[in-house]
């Protein structure tokens, strides 16, 4: 049950994201019917699921929200900016309600927003449903999704099904009159296994006044073959004509996919064998009971206008257009990815053991190409647009603006950049802290901004882009910039640095990420608890990334999270350090040289340079940095790999030998351990042994990790 609830909340989160996107688009002037219908559907499914799980407060609120959305969708209330604003605030409360239902937040105060919604209904709702504001709007027979009627049944009598299904197929195309309803319902075989409770649905219909006409037992296998988790039954239920169709469709709002559901007037009865009752036949409903079902060829007929191809499961078409997706457990994906990784390794073992001629003979290159394609595809399954992480920002900005009185515009770019799901999940908190920090410390109050000749509204630019194997996520504000004098004073006061420490501007900026540092004069509830930027840095480093800060006094501050695209393939150079194999990312390699005598010179007891055609480049000994055995290997026996780094430009890295060049699959070290400075991960080589992947940026930034102390912090 908890698991199903979990699915429901997952769907809520997705629904909220869709709704927020839609509302933002509406606010920006996109009033297309698809956008509006998208918001409506999102709110509608949240309401439905909430009803099923008995979250009364959430259901009630979503219901009101949905009423207004429905009016807007039908064009009876114009989506003016004012109305959209009310809906945005309703959206915020809806988000809070979902959190409350989940137990992660207290129940929100929704009376003000409810009143605003009522007001919208009352003042603008001059159309069909505008009569009684408190009453649910009547079900319009629009082609999108019927407006559910009967609030009672929404809240209490909902079915059990957390699987969202759009209601397109239940279009009320007939005259809603006279004959009783006949419902034909056969849950999919997997319904029970998926957590469905067909019996509850049937009881629900009974509660509406329905009576079971017949139950088809023909699919029941002999007892010993019966699977307890499969459903074999098929019900035919008669419901009085007075019941609204929407109330019936609501009952089946959350049936398992692939279930057969048909709702039709009794005159259109067909033998229960070919399922749905659509076309008027000459049988009376009583015949249904007698009709001997033959399930050999289940023909699924649908309600009038929407018949899909007969072989398609009834509800397949009903899934929402945006959701051409299948929900897969992440664990399964990870397992698949691991297995594909193994496949790649097996491939390279084969390549190692076969001569080139033999490789051609068994078409190994083709196999390798295919394997690579499979791997790319599997990895793309885990990649998600970073929009998911960005989606919570607009809401946060609205709250923070209201709290601080600072006005902020958000500009977002690159939200379609695809990043591994694991990374997206983990950058949420750092992103939140960075945004809070930007508003709390960066953006000035409107009066100050005007005094400085800036726009009264501050701007926060949120961007994501992929560069090589890294993702850059930036939060840039146009606020006051880092006050280095104050930061320095604070750091001295907190004992983070010595009073006489000589620090560059960049080093001072980095101090705000030091543990326990906070410059906020008063502790606000936004940031200033002295944990924010510290958390950002440790979270990002735990992901194998780093944080860069660039600030110009008076003009603003930019925080950049540089993150790895985890679980990727890397083109690597296999080198040896202290006899051990390591992988050097080929993307960083410029060239390799065998140093001639005298080409490498000392500039200090701990620093060396290499003369590259007249240009002196710093040289690092990888074995020294890691304190590996064999550090005293002679330079003439070694090779210098010139690598390119973001932070230090071209640097020579001394390695023992170069073994090979090959593609490797990155495995994270922190999956079972913790991130190790200087290592970007590990990989499994053709012989099954492990080689560690070097992190060039971290390597060139230091002479020794054992003696490493954070830059700029007094040692």
């Amino acid at each position, binding site marked *: 049950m908890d698991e199903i609830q979990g699915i429901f909340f997952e769907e809520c989160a997705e629904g909220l994201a869709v709704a927020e996107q839609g509302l933002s688009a509406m606010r920006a002037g996109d009033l297309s019917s698809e956008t509006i219908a998208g918001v409506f559907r999102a709110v509608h499914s949240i309401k439905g699921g909430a009803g099923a799980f008995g979250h009364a407060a959430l259901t009630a609120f979503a219901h009101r929200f949905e009423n207004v959305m429905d009016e807007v969708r039908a064009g009876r209330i114009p989506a003016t900016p004012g109305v959209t604003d009310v809906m945005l605030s309703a959206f915020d409360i809806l988000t809070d309600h979902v959190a409350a239902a989940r137990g992660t937040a207290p129940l929100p105060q929704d009376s003000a927003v409810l009143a605003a919604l009522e007001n919208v209904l009352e003042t603008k709702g001059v159309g069909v449903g505008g009569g009684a504001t408190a009453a649910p709007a009547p079900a319009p027979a629009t082609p999108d999704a019927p407006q559910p009627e009967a609030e009672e049944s929404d809240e209490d009598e909902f079915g059990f099904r957390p699987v969202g299904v759009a209601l397109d197929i239940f279009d009320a195309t007939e005259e809603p009159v006279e004959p009783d309803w006949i419902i034909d319902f056969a849950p999919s075989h997997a319904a029970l296994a998926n957590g469905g409770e067909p019996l509850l649905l049937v009881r629900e219909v009974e509660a509406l006044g329905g009576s079971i006409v017949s139950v088809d037992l023909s699919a029941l296998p002999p007892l010993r073959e019966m699977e307890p988790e499969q459903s074999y039954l098929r019900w035919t239920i008669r419901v009085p004509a007075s019941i609204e169709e929407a109330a019936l469709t609501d009952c089946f709002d959350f049936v398992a996919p692939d279930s057969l559901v048909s709702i039709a007037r009794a005159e259109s009865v067909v033998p229960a064998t070919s399922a749905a009752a659509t076309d008027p036949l000459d049988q009376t409903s009583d015949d249904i009971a007698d009709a001997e079902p033959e399930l050999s060829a289940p023909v699924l007929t649908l309600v009038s206008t929407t018949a899909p191809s007969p072989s398609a499961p009834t509800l397949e078409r009903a899934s929402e257009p945006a959701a051409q997706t299948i929900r897969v457990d992440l664990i399964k994906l990870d397992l698949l990815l691991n297995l594909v990784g193994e496949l790649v390794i097996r491939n390279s073992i084969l390549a190692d053991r076969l001569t080139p001629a033999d490789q051609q003979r068994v078409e190994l290159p083709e196999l390798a190409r295919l394997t690579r394609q499979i791997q790319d595809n599997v990895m793309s399954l885990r990649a998600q647009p970073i929009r998911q992480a960005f989606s919570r920002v607009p809401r946060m900005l609205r709250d923070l603006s209201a709290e601080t009185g600072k006005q902020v515009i958000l500009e977002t770019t690159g939200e379609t950049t695809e990043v591994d799901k694991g990374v997206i999940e983990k950058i949420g908190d750092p992103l939140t802290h960075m945004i809070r920090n930007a508003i709390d410390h960066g953006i000035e109050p409107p009066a100050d901004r005007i005094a400085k000749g800036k726009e009264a509204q501050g701007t926060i630019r949120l961007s994501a882009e992929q560069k090589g194997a890294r993702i850059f996520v930036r939060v840039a504000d146009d606020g006051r910039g880092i006050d280095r004098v104050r930061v320095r004073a604070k750091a001295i006061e907190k004992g983070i640095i010595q009073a006489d420490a000589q620090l560059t501007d960049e080093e001072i900026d980095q101090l705000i990420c030091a543990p326990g540092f906070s410059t906020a004069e008063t502790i606000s509830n936004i940031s200033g608890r002295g944990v924010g930027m510290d958390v950002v840095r440790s979270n990002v480093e735990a992901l194998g990334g780093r944080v860069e800060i660039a600030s110009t006094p008076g003009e603003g501050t930019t925080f950049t999270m540089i993150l790895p695209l985890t679980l990727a393939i890397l083109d690597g150079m296999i080198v040896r350090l202290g006899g051990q194999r390591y992988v050097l990312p080929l993307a960083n390699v410029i060239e390799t040289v065998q140093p001639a005598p005298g080409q490498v010179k000392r500039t200090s007891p701990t620093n060396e340079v290499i003369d590259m055609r007249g240009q002196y480049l710093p040289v690092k000994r990888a074995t020294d940095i890691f304190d590996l055995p064999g550090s005293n290997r002679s330079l003439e026996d070694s090779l210098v790999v010139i690598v390119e780094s973001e932070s230090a430009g071209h640097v020579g890295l001394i390695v023992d030998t170069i073994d090979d060049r090959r593609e490797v699959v990155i*495995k994270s*070290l922190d*999956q079972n351990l913790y991130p190790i400075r200087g290592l970007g991960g590990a990989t499994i080589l053709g012989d099954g042994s492990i080689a560690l992947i070097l992190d060039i940026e971290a390597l060139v930034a230091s002479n020794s990790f054992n003696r490493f102390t954070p830059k700029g912090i007094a040692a």
Partner: protein
Amino acid sequence: MSSLDHRTANKQADRKIVTFSLGHQTFGIDMHSLIEIREWEEPTPLPTVPSFIKGVTNLRGNVVPVIGLAERLGWEPSKIHARSCVLVVSIGEKQAGFLVDEVSDIVSIGDQEIQPAPDVEIGEPSVILGLVRVESRTMEARGDDTGQMILLLDLDGLSLTRHLELVA
């Protein structure tokens, strides 16, 4: 649903312990945490890690750290010999391999048999879950009934990332 939980919980009160030796001591871990027992194989050493982390090894495509358990617990580091083996365990969501001297037995004990360990640990709380006295099968065969003390390990306390969490 909840009554079912209770039933299973009671059933599990009788727990199975895998016992193994480190030097002259006998330790035990909950069998539920054990993934597999492997022969010792030299792992790939990691730079800049504490010396008790022997390196990482390939466990069916997973990169798993190998811990010198004796050293981790403050004893003399184990010497590798023919019966040395690695117990692969799950700690929370992570996996780790523990180098041990010899796997001895699997015993069933009731929760009530576990005595809390007196506070004589290695300056670090909660690595030892408790002490249990068991008679092993081999002892019974010999007619020896003095029993043997097993130090039951708390795997969560041995998590490699615990010190990181404490710092954070």
